[in-house]
């Protein structure tokens, strides 16, 4: 995520490139090498026990014809959109609020931060228990709000639940990003706006939001890539069900790889996922002008 262009500011006192070695090495061993292996495997047939044998383009031609992949891709896209639309406004407002100096802000911020500290598995199991249609809290509380306790048994309900649980967990993280971003906004802008008679809302829409443009991009890229690879909650809460209605791409990959043991095809799905996620974040960065990092400080 760290844009390298900022270094153009000057090379005075910069550490040598070799300082990046541990990082590069780590990245190579745990990201590049596995990625290369996955790409290689996507051209193989492999059951995980015997040696992989070449399969040519079989996995890839199958990938583009497979209706399950199409459905999973659509669900992934849907989940990503819902997650983004749900998390961004809330995290943005919370972040801006948390950047202020109100009373008890620090305490509440700490409370809001808690979900991020819990393990994903614990959270998923917790919500699974809460949403149990027969013995969960939802059984008692759901009807008050006109919610059918069988939330996770309906296709829309299950997908929304997964998006909600993920949002609940990761919102604090994005709140933190927005809080940091808001604090970076020079106070002079607000002081000037106040002198010009701009109220709270105008200040928010004309100073805070535009100034947070790059922060929004950062947070969105993280959110989108995160939702595209969202897996653990699906595995624990819905197992891709009901039917295949929450079988998003990463879960389909898991099922193909570790339940059907068709690891070659699973690698093809994984590779496709990497390509899509990378492409999406590149497009987002390009179109939001995120590449020109210095632009928000223009005229200062």
């Amino acid at each position, binding site marked *: 995520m760290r844009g390298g262009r900022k270094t153009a500011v000057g090379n005075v006192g910069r550490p*040598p490139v*070799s*300082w990046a*070695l*541990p990082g590069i*090495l*780590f990245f190579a*061993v745990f990201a590049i090498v596995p990625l290369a292996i996955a790409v290689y495997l996507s051209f193989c047939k492999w*059951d*995980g*026990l*015997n040696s992989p044998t070449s399969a040519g383009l079989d996995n890839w031609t199958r990938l583009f014809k497979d209706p399950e992949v199409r459905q999973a891709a659509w669900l992934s896209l849907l989940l990503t959109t819902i997650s983004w639309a749900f998390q961004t406004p809330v995290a943005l407002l919370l972040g801006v609020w948390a950047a202020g100096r109100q009373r008890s802000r620090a305490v509440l911020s700490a409370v809001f931060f808690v979900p991020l500290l819990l393990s994903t598995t614990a959270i998923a199991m917790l919500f*699974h228990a809460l*949403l*149990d*249609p*027969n*013995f969960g809290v939802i059984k008692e509380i759901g009807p008050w709000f006109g919610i059918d*306790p*069988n*939330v*996770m*048994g*309906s*296709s829309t309900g*299950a997908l929304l639940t997964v998006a909600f649980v993920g949002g609940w967990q990761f919102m604090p993280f994005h709140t933190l990003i927005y809080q940091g971003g808001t604090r970076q906004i020079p106070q002079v802008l607000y002081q000037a706006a106040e002198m010009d008679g701009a109220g709270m809302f105008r200040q928010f829409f004309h100073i805070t939001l535009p100034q947070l443009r790059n922060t929004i991009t950062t947070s969105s890229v993280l959110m989108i890539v995160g939702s595209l690879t969202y897996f653990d909650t699906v595995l624990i809460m*819905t*197992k*891709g*069900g*009901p*039917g*295949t*209605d929450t079988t998003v791409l990463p879960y389909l990959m898991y*099922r193909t790889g*570790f*339940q*059907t*043991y*068709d690891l070659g095809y699973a690698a093809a799905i994984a590779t496709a996922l990497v390509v899509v996620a990378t492409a999406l974040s590149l497009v987002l960065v390009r179109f939001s002008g995120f590449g020109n990092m210095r632009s928000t400080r223009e005229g200062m």
Partner: protein
Amino acid sequence: MRSGIFTQGTRAARWTAAGAAMVMAGLLTGCGSGSGSGSDGGTITAYVYGDDAVKVQQAAVTEFNKTSKVKVKLVSVPGTDYVNKLRSSMGSPSAPDIFFNWGGGSIKPYVDAKQLVDLTSTVNGDAELKDGFLPSIMTAGGLDGKIYGVPMRGMQPVMLFYNKKLFTENKLEAPKTWEDLQKAITTFKAQGITPFALGGSDKWPELMWMEYLLDRIGGPEVFKKIQNGDSSGWGDPAVLKAAQTVKDLVDQGAFGKNFNSVDYGNGGAPTLLNKGKAAMHLMGSWEYSTQLGKAPEFAKKDLGWTAFPTVAGGVGDAADVVGNPTNYWSINARTKHKDAAIAFLKTMASQKYAKALVDNGDIPTTSNAASMLSTSPNPQFANDQYSLVQKAPSFTLSWDQALESQYATPLLTELSKLFAGKSSPEQFVAAMKAVK
């Protein structure tokens, strides 16, 4: 000093790199040298399917470790993850030495990859093992006439469990025919009680319905054909009829409305039965141990059981049984302590182990089982189950164990779509015929 070192450019960088490389190397080799290492006599790892019956295996391990130099370490893998975890570790250097399995298709990939110890000569050359178990059970765990496993748990036919209290209150008898079943469904639905508990989110409990329905409708031969690798077998009209029956039951509300989000693994479905919220539960005979563990009062007083009823117009024998003949221990061919592993497997044939299984409510598959059943916590259940299996003309192995995972996984997915109303019986059949 410190800042000096860090600004010294290349030399410091080299050190950092070297340090990082060593850490990496450490991590990598750390991954590579998983199992087998140990002091003295060494350790053998045994993977077992984690449920309420593990305590029996744990006791056997403790007993074995008292005298053996090579110690057995029992790893209880939570049920839902068992197959995954086993498969992943069998392809890695940290594979278990001994592992629990269902025989048949469940071990075929390992046999094909030459990862299992062929126990044929060991068993045949050892009176204790050869005569210790029912011969049919011993062969059921093998493949192509060879023996790869030693029975280690009770027989597990799938039975229809019911809440006796609810049946008495509603003046109903345990269903023997499809008519009885329909009557029970209507009666319980009118009372606001779910007729059948079903852990649909785990998928495999749904499979039990399909297995019995197909058996009752078309007889065991239909699945035999599929099991032997002929996927056109899914096109048999009996499969379509069974799938249609499933759809009818679902539409009727026989499983309630929310079975899709109820599980078996975490106790969802069994709790429905023991709390009286559901009247019946089609489940493997381990349901008894499960209920004994979760709700002992209920298990002893109100838990009833019966065979799966007949289905109108079906040609299958009403005495046929589906489920798991038993579970087996198999030995990894890469183990460093083969003799110790075999020695441990032999303890499975002991009177003491069989007794421990009986005490846990299981019916061991040892030849002497019948004589022990009277000491079971519920001799009635033990005897009923034993005679159910003994009289069965056919015992079909659970489909998800009989088929290899490349067929079993899509089967479970397609079935869950059928139950969820996401695909029609016709679509189910078409999808299964297309699986390659």
